């Protein structure tokens, strides 16, 4: 969202970001000072979150949602309020909504989006980042996506899911995609040297969480190296504790949190990127790996990433540890063919997911929305 704001600002749009003072999407604790600041050409206003009163009640509701139980409208609202609230942001929107041609809210399951969308739905665009998960099927999500004027999707499978979730989907909806920055150069050898990586490796980049498929990947990777005698280690970085099982500690290397300047080199140094997550609405790491000339191996059950792999011709998918083992054996045994696949991926990213292309799509959508109000 911040990059999109800067990209639009660079084209002489006046852009403001209204956000929280929090940095953690687990605690929602206020860590930034509230107030207004400037980040380049973008104005950033931060508002404090309000602590949840009854965590046990919120946890109960969360549990019911996770089990896909049917919630009453009142319970759904209580669930939305049970994570965090940011009422001052809401009041700011109430006060200033008329000043904006368009209000873009993201992602779909946060209080700020559900409540913010009710302020000026005729000028609101929701960028939902939908996954096919229990939250997406709440009535309150359906009514939000139907009530607003527009929706931006990151991929065609997400767009189709949007139609299933909200049959009366916002009239001005489109697939705008998401963009990645194209690095000017890569230093794969330097990255290996800095981190003492002497063996070939495959990479997992992202949150080490159950929901992102990290634990499942550990099991699948362990089975794959046991049955195929693969030369690869599994290198990982990102937030969350990796909790590497004892039996895999010699083959799984945790680099912890890496500075963003290191990421392109990490992608370039890897023999392949593994993407085990089933809940992706875009998958930025897949795009960054392809840009770096690194092939992608993704879980077949991730509708969005499988779609990218098929559409680009740049990635392979697996559905269990045996197929993962075969994919890794392919990368080990036929590196030139694997590099040819990655080349297809790079061409795909450059054609669809650079900032000029994505900003064009966002501008077209906003212009259509403004024009419709003026008619």
């Amino acid at each position, binding site marked *: 969202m911040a990059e999109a704001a800067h990209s639009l600002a660079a084209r002489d749009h006046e852009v403001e970001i209204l956000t929280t003072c929090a940095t953690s999407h687990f605690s929602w604790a206020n860590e930034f000072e509230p107030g207004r600041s400037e980040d380049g050409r973008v104005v950033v206003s931060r508002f404090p979150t309000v602590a949840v009163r009854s965590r046990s009640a919120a946890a109960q509701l969360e549990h019911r949602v996770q089990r896909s139980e049917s919630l009453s409208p009142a319970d759904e609202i209580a669930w939305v309020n049970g994570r965090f609230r940011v009422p001052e942001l809401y009041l700011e929107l109430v006060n200033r909504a008329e000043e904006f041609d368009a209000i873009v809210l993201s992602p779909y399951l946060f209080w700020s989006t559900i409540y913010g969308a009710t302020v000026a739905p005729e000028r609101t665009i929701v960028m939902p980042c939908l996954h096919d998960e229990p939250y997406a099927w709440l009535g309150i999500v359906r009514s939000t996506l139907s009530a607003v004027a527009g929706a931006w999707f990151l991929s065609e499978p997400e767009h189709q899911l949007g139609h299933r979730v909200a049959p009366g989907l916002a009239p001005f909806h489109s697939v705008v995609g998401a963009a990645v920055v194209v690095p000017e150069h890569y230093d794969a050898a330097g990255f290996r040297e800095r981190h003492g990586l002497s063996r070939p490796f495959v990479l997992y980049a992202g949150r080490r969480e159950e929901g992102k498929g990290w634990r499942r990947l550990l099991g699948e990777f362990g089975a794959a190296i046991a*049955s195929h*005698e693969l030369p690869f280690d599994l290198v990982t970085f990102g937030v969350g504790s990796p909790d590497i099982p004892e*039996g895999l500690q*010699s083959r799984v290397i945790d680099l912890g949190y890496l500075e963003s300047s290191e990421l392109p080199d990490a992608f370039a140094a890897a023999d392949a990127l593994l993407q085990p997550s089933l809940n992706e609405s875009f998958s930025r790491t897949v795009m960054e790996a392809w840009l770096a000339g690194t092939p992608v191996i993704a879980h077949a059950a991730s509708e969005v990433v499988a779609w990218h792999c098929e559409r680009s011709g740049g990635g392979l998918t697996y559905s269990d540890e*045996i197929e993962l083992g*075969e994919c890794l054996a392919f990368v*080990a045994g*036929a590196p030139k063919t694997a590099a040819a696949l990655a080349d*297809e991926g790079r061409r795909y990213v450059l054609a669809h997911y650079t900032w000029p292309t994505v900003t064009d799509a966002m501008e077209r959508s906003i212009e259509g929305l403004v024009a419709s109000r003026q008619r």
Partner: protein
Amino acid sequence: MTTLVVGTVPPPGGEAAAQLAALASQLRATGERVEVLSPDRRSAAHHHGSITGPMLALQLIRRSRSCDGVVIAFGPGVPLAATAGRVERAVTLGLLGVALRSFSDVTLRLASPIPLPGGVGGRATAAMWSRATSIVVENEADRERVVLAPGVDAACLVVRPTAAPAHGGRSMAWNELHFDTADLRSQVQLAVRERAAEARRVNSARVELGAKGVLDDGAGPFSGTSARVSPPDPVVLARVFAGRVRRVLRKLATQP
């Protein structure tokens, strides 16, 4: 001296099997008599039989009459299946510790990651480690883990890495496949699916027969042949048991 080498050897096998065969060959070259016991009846081994679970100990006791030394290659299913529970682990490793007493020279070669469900420590493994005259691991990290286990003599630990299969085993087969440049991804994806389906079929057959092990590479004259192991012979089991009881009784009788 006669050494019993226990583990999967080719054909068909993979890198680990090839290395075990090379080791057996080296032992022979030094003038030792070598007998190979493999769970895969397609292997070029002297003996075929199940070596998963308590069967390994029984096989060792049986072969100990003719062999002085033993080399056991720990790998998938040897001596424990990945699904082995605590009781099976305790029984298998406890019996293994007893069986190893019959050999004067014991080498344990551990694949990486070390294929011991439940880890390398605990009482069940102590007897096994204490009988080893040599424990070969693949890397320093494995060495550091094993050296902490009860019963391990640090002086017995040797780090000997397995060469990465840059051009061998299944990877080689991928290297040999030819793909057209048009619609490359679909061709590779199809090959992945087909090879995985074949591997599942082989695995399924092995699981049914209780002999989960290294996958066949699906190539060569051994492709399509069964990896079935020799089933445990009840007469052999009874003889081994009776022989062991006799030996213990004889020992007790000769003690002052």
